[in-house]
């Protein structure tokens, strides 16, 4: 493996960072602002991606309409998750959310006829059928590439993902800076105090979950369009924890910290692929793959040791009681 990767590779890293920005913003709203430990955030991504793919391939609905439906279904799933669980204490809520995301993944794994099962979306239209869910997207991407005179499809995807991320970031920034965002933060701080001042805590938590569901679903759509194929394995709980890493790395309760956290995380994650100098070169590539994860862990620990508040967080906030 060479130490210097192609522009294509770094464009790919950029796209993934963009997807994680959108995905991480969902965690930022729910956890960073509202204090909801949703450990099942990846479920919204899975629901977004699968709903869009299934509706496009199986019902003949246009892909864009299917994408809008996917966001709607994700919101419904968020409400369905929240209604029975949001009254639980924080730790029990966290446990039920992780169960929720695993239920979604197992349904995708076992309902072959609906989802294509373990083989993923390649099997969506039945064996031997080559129907894809993203033909409309491919055409759209080619058109955008022509408009902007971009050199490659990767570069186009990079522009598209980050444009979407930027728009969502601005909208979310406005929402969270508003009195609405202030109520969310008050719930994170002390929900009894918020209730005593007339705030409907349950309703705001549901709203926070729904906004998170929208962001998760949009991230899922881009994931599906970028990879052109996905399977239940892509939505393991680890993905949720990567998003938490992004948010904590950037700094909690700061919207602009999410893209920076995503880029830093992406660079660490991708950059460690090129560790072929000593001592890493003493190991063979299979061993190195595992070693890489250990190195990522060490880097994150060191970063957190020096900046526990994240890159953009405020240290004073960590000591206030």
């Amino acid at each position: 493996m060479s130490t210097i990767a192609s522009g294509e590779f770094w464009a790919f890293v950029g796209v993934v960072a963009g997807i994680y920005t959108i995905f991480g913003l969902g965690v930022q709203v729910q956890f960073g602002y509202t204090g909801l430990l949703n450990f099942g955030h990846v479920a919204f991504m899975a629901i977004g991606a699968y709903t869009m793919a299934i509706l496009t391939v199986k019902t003949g609905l246009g892909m864009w309409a299917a994408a809008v439906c996917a966001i709607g279904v994700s919101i419904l799933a968020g409400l369905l998750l929240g209604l029975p669980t949001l009254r639980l204490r924080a730790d029990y809520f966290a446990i039920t959310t992780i169960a929720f995301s695993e239920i979604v993944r197992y349904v995708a794994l076992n309902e072959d006829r609906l989802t294509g099962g373990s083989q993923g979306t390649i099997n969506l239209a039945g064996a031997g059928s080559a129907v894809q869910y993203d033909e409309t997207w491919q055409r759209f991407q080619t058109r955008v590439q022509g408009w902007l005179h971009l050199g490659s499809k990767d570069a186009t995807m990079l522009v598209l993902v980050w444009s979407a991320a930027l728009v969502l970031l601005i909208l979310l920034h406005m929402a969270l800076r508003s009195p609405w965002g202030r109520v969310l933060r008050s719930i994170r701080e002390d929900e009894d105090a918020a209730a005593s001042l007339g705030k409907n805590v349950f309703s705001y938590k549901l709203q926070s979950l729904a906004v998170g569901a929208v962001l998760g679903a949009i991230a899922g759509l881009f994931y599906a369009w970028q990879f052109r194929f996905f399977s239940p394995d892509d939505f393991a709980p680890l993905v949720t924890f990567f998003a938490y890493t992004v948010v904590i790395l950037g700094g909690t309760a700061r919207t602009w910290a999410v893209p920076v956290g995503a880029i830093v995380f992406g660079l660490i994650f991708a950059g460690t692929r090129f560790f072929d100098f000593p001592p890493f070169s003493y190991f063979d590539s299979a061993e190195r793959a595992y070693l890489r994860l250990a190195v990522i862990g060490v880097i994150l620990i060191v970063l957190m040791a020096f900046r526990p508040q994240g890159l953009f967080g405020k240290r004073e906030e960590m000591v206030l009681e």
Partner: protein
Amino acid sequence: MSLLEVRGVTRSFGGVRAVDNASFDVAAGSITALIGPNGAGKSSLFNIVSGFLRAERGSVTFAGRTIERRAPHRIAQAGLVRTFQTPRALTKMSVLENVLLAAPHHPGERLGRVFATPRTTRSHESGAEREARRLLKLVRLDRQADDYAGTLSGGERKLLDFARVLMTEPRLILLDEPMAGVNPTLGRQLLEHIVEVRGKRGVTFLLIEHDLDLVMRASDTVVVMNEGRILTAGTPDEVRSDERVVDAYLGSHT
């Protein structure tokens, strides 16, 4: 007419009747004190009235409406707000934000309105900010307005809680030991504010307080609780001369 009517309210924890068939009234425009030794059930009663705790029996009527089954936020919206014994400052928010949060009927707290009517939202916010700063001045926290609430002392947090409940434009304020931990000078000022707010805005107060001198001087009615029951209620003079009250505080001599 009574603004608050508590009738036969009962609540037990395990085998202990924390509140036992309690009935009393709070007259509109009055300052009513709820006193009694530790463990008398005062805070439990507060929690029941404000909706944080459910009564097993009995009814609570506020401004002519039963509220004992309502959620705390709905009771607060109806104009009955409370503070807590340990102040609940939102530590990672600024002092000003703590008060702003309490602004009633704020359109900006609806996500749709934030985007649909940004101008209305903003003008409401600046109006709220003026009021919040005025209230912070009243409790002498105006200079700390932009500090994190977590940097305030315990006594200052009590004052912040007071400013916050005033911000909700309430009809009845329940204060749980508002003077505890506040230095005596500030405590006296706080009491003056209570009297002033009652006079100017017609706000009614129900407060739990251990400083009996203070209570006797400021309140119109004193309700005495002991072992979950209402022992007696009356003017400070009536209560002072009641032997049962003396017994409750000093131990029975029979």
